[in-house]
């Protein structure tokens, strides 16, 4: 068995890629997808640590993260469609009514 450190390293890389995606993309949908990528990376590290400790608690927590992520996506996409209906744009730059 290879060390869990391999998986944790991959999780770090994916997390950073997701973070950069959140920062550089303007389409709100793609920003959401990047957030999902970050959540998945964290899940990977949870499972790697669960394996390192030989216990299942990490897997249970990853399971809960998945559930919460599903709920988050549902509400987030609903907000996105209602913003799109009002503003006719899915770009995060256009939702600037509160600016100034």
């Amino acid at each position, binding site marked *: *068995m*290879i*060390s*869990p*450190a*391999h*998986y944790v*390293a*991959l999780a*770090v*890389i*994916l*997390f*950073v*890629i*997701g*973070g*950069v*995606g959140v*920062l*550089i*993309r*303007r389409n709100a*949908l*793609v920003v959401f*997808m*990047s957030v*999902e*990528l970050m959540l*998945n990376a964290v*899940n*990977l590290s949870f*499972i790697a640590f*669960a*394996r*390192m*400790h*030989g216990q*299942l608690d990490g*897997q*249970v927590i*990853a*399971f*809960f993260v*998945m*559930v*919460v*992520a*599903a*709920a*988050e996506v*549902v509400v987030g*996409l*609903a*907000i996105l*469609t209602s913003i*799109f209906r009002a503003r*006719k744009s899915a*770009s995060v*730059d256009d939702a600037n009514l509160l600016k100034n």
Partner: protein
Amino acid sequence: MIHSLILASPGSDSAELAAWWILAIAAVGAALGMIFTKRAVHCAVMLAVVMLILAAMYAMQGAPFLAFVQVIVYTGAVLMLFLFVMMIVGVSAADSIIETIRGQRLWAGLAGISLLVLLALVVGHAAIGAAAPSGPRNSSTNVEGLARLIFTTYVFPFEVTSALLITAAVGAMVLAHRERTGPKPTQRLLSRQRVAGGHPAPLPGPGTYAQHNAVDMPALLPDGSASRLSVSGVLANRAIEAERSGGRPAIAAEVLEPGEPADLDMPATVPTRGGDPPRRLPGGLPPEPPAPAANEEER
């Protein structure tokens, strides 16, 4: 069966390492592709690749239950929800290149690199031991052990989760719901608007089979010019966009008159086929998107 297949036997060390390298490179490549591809649909496909690879990695680490949940929930439900919303919010809308904040990309890249360095330092300093000898072992199988934990130690968070899911479902329905503010248009009103809209007859069909074998070819008017009403606004927008990004201008040359600036509002006031009054269709959007995110994935 899968369990015994997945929980690697002690001898298969190099096999797992090779699989890790292949999957990790593919995952990082797909993730980079996701954040750098312009079209949102391509991003979703790349994200699906990453999630499937992660499912395989869960399986490699003795978490077959989570691997299946990952495939079913993430690639099955969450990404499909993304694609549904993408169909509503406008597939044709590519990201704008213009930076609203000056130097945003540069600073984002710097922030990403510094985050990577920070995390690498933290993880490098942490003592990550080798895997426990026989993988997760609280019970005979992974699913059994997870069930035992979820329904004993974590039973309260589990119940709270169900409340959270119900709340999310209701919230999505409330957010996606839209009240009818005016009276429902009657048939008389609709026919009046249709006549008053200047185009009482049905719209001309596309020029399929007249010259080409595709719906994006405009029909020709008697004088030989192309009829702009005969091509769907979505297709016209895509053509304009392709022309802008240097692709082949499939129909734009015929739909747009030469010399005319490619304005995205070109097919904007197309009388819809239902005889509604002319509506603006920005970005080729159907005027009344169906209620979107009401389909929750049940977890």
